[in-house]
């Protein structure tokens, strides 16, 4: 079938829903999601959403912006960070008005708590900036936004998987999708298309990310010649449940939790004496790995299974039940322990992509280093790179990013489509996607995708992880090249049309493989250490050579790299100490 809408939003997480709410005010809008409603990964965000409300102690948006820039190791675009911090206040109040059940202070205002890297007066001490709803803030945001979409009767296409984007020259004309329940391929013509497909942490073996986080948006665009920005910067969250990667919110440390090594030492005292356990995530993750490497992990053998302890036993049952109830439940379910009585075994887990589809501050997709844009093409949320997170995102800023830039993209699309017509799309628009799907279905013999996926996850974890070297990354690039070749011979075992989830997984695997390849190539190319990208062969930050954004184009079997300047209009880059 062919559908026609003024605006099409791909993805029903926080950014997509907020954009849809704004766009649908005047434009005919459809939301395409590969999941059922409210299954999106925004719902898994725990700790909070930062805004300098100053409800608990003095705070300023300018401090929030500075922390975001410094947290991003000065790769953050500074005008964007200022906009983020200023608009965060309006966004949080707006969410409250729409019904979001924030925790409250004794006076009935929105309660706030400390979070990593968020400070008072340009780094003096940790500040209470994170607005929260227990430890399920993302769940509440997703629910609130979906509730508003019900109220405003937004149109949803649930369980439709995006396959391709229709672009002619610098003009986006629509998308091609496959419908899970029938296996049919459809074309959506639209004057404006927003990609809000979330992250792609599933390229790593240990990750906090949902199975759905396979980077469908960035991969589809990369295959159509759109560059991806700063893909080498992937955040490992310091505290995932050992071996499983399930997220234990930074809110635990925000409420006073402490990281300890095998001798019970609060080791962060040695790494970041001012912010201690509330240093930014890249630093804390590296500190944990250093402890493990030096034999001070709990097992002590420095193996990949080694871990450290997150101690929340001194917080007391009441604080844990009131402010961290889900964390307590995860600990009971998956580790059989009560965090009020036992320390939580944790290790870093692949968590968040700082890089993604390059956009301006209205979500418009950028085509090159000069900032030229694609007409009618937008991206927002984790799949996009504005860049407000630079080389390392601060905790809580992902939720701010969703609501600030999701909304701005929605408003811009609404205005843009007023003067635009629904594009004419050729009959052959969906043919490449159809050909690809038929090829997968008809191949009767071939390696099953499961094996390729397993190897990709391992090589990314071991060779493009927290500590990186040139030779390891070269090995990863070679393996990924090989896996992409193997993929061209992979077959689906399920040949049915209806609810073919085998086919979906193999579509997702192609997306992950392409993004893993771009990530490894971008990482191998950047010969310095900055934020989450740490190279043992280039251990220092090198502003002279590398204070620039990477733009990476996927060509058939290689990745072409170019660069884009960083906006440092407000604060001069300085060494990053906490």
């Amino acid at each position, binding site marked *: 079938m062919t559908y026609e809408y003024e605006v099409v939003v791909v993805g029903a997480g926080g950014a997509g829903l907020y954009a849809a709410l704004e766009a649908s005010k005047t434009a005919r809008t459809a939301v395409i999601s590969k*999941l*059922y*409603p*409210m*299954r999106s*990964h925004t*719902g*898994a965000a725990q700790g909070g959403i930062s805004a300098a409300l100053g409800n608990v102690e003095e705070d300023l948006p300018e401090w929030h912006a500075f922390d975001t820039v410094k947290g991003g190791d000065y790769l953050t675009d500074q005008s964007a960070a200022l906009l983020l911090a200023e608009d965060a206040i309006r966004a*949080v*109040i707006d969410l*409250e*008005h*729409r*019904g979001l*059940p*924030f*925790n*409250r*202070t*004794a006076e*009935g*205002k*929105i309660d706030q708590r400390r979070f990593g890297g968020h400070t008072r007066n340009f780094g003096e001490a940790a500040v209470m900036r994170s607005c929260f*709803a*227990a430890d*399920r803030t993302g*769940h*509440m945001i997703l*629910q*609130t936004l979906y*509730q*508003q979409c*019900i*109220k405003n009767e937004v149109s949803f296409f649930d369980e439709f998987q995006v396959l391709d984007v229709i672009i002619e020259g610098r003009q986006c004309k629509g998308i091609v999708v496959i419908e899970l*329940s029938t296996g049919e391929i459809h074309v959506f013509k639209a004057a404006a298309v927003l990609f809000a497909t979330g992250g792609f942490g599933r390229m790593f073996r240990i990750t906090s990310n*949902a*199975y*759905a986080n396979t980077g469908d948006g960035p991969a589809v665009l990369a295959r159509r010649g759109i560059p991806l920005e700063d893909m080498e910067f992937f955040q490992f969250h310091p505290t995932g449940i050992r071996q*499983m990667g*399930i*997220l234990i919110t930074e809110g635990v440390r925000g409420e006073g939790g402490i990281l300890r090594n095998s001798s019970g030492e609060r080791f962060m005292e040695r790494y970041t004496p001012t912010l201690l356990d509330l240093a930014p995530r890249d630093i804390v993750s590296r500190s944990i790995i250093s402890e493990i490497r030096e034999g001070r992990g709990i097992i002590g053998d420095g193996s990949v299974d080694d871990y450290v302890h997150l101690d929340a036993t001194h917080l007391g049952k009441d604080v844990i039940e009131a402010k961290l109830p*889900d964390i307590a*439940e*995860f600990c009971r*379910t*998956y580790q059989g322990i009560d965090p009020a009585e036992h320390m939580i075994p944790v290790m870093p887990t692949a968590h968040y992509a700082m890089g993604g589809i390059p956009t301006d501050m209205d979500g418009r997709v950028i085509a090159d280093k000069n900032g030229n844009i694609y007409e009618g093409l937008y991206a927002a949320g984790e799949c996009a790179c504005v860049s407000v997170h630079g080389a390392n995102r601060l905790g809580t800023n992902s939720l701010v990013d969703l609501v600030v830039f999701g909304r701005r993209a929605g408003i811009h699309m609404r205005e843009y489509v007023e003067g635009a017509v629904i594009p004419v799309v050729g009959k052959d628009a969906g043919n490449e996607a159809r050909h690809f799907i038929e090829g997968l279905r008809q191949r009767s013999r071939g390696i*099953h*995708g*499961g094996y390729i*996926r397993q190897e990709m996850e391992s090589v990314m974890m071991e060779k493009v992880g927290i500590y990186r070297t040139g030779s390891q990354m070269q090995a990863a690039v070679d393996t990924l090249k090989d896996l992409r070749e193997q993929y061209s011979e992979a077959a*689906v*075992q*399920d040949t*049915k049309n*209806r*609810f*073919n*989830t*085998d086919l979906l*997984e193999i579509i997702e695997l192609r997306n992950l493989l392409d993004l893993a390849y771009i990530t490894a190539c971008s990482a191998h190319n950047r010969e310095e250490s900055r934020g989450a990208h740490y190279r043992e062969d280039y251990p220092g930050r090198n502003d002279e050579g590398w204070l620039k954004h990477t733009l990476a184009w996927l060509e058939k079997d290689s990745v072409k790299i170019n660069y884009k300047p960083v906006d440092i209009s407000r604060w001069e880059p300085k060494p990053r100490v906490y």
Partner: protein
Amino acid sequence: MKVALKIERFNPKSDAKPHFQEYSVDVSENDRVLDLLIHVKRFQDGSLAFRKSCAHGVCGSDAMIINGIERLACKTLVKDVAQNENNSITVEPLKNLPIQRDLMVNQDEFFKRYKSVKPFLINDEKAPGRERIQSPEERKKFDDATKCILCAACFSACPVIREKNPLFLGPAQVVQASRFLDDSRDRGFEARIAVLDTPKGVWPCENHFKCTEVCPRGIKVTKLINLTKKKIKNYRERRGQ
């Protein structure tokens, strides 16, 4: 350990009726049942159909019946459900919703009824420049209901829907309504009563407590249904009905 995983398979387009298929999977006792299903799908039988996403009990995708009880596959550990000397685990799709394929059920009706309770804040008063004020006590009143992830485990376990009144609104739906009825900022009581105070609304519930027993989020579902009934009764009394 080796687990004998028995899964109900059914493709309504080609099968006359559901049948069980058994898979042998080598796993660790701390693995989730979801890990087993994924292992089967990736390395034994790609045609097995089920939904999944977050894999840690917060998105609501993988509710199914494991050893006869509604649970989330990602929140159920092998060691807690493997039975007998061959470590057998039986997995079936949710009940009270039509099977699409294997463990996938059609949740359209579930969401349609959810939407009918007007699950959004209703308040047309002019909002202040800052947040609306709400005390911690007022906020706590509806905390339990905010945990709902709409997984439909309660809807499947409800004996009223299964045996007596398939049109009963449903446990999760009442929970979602109560989340707003108990919110001091909400003004939509009467709009929601029009849906709840009907023969298909809140009244068919007979307090079997099955919803409360299976809720993977530990919500006191039956209690919230009874409190909602009480609110309606009080409202009627106030109006002299």
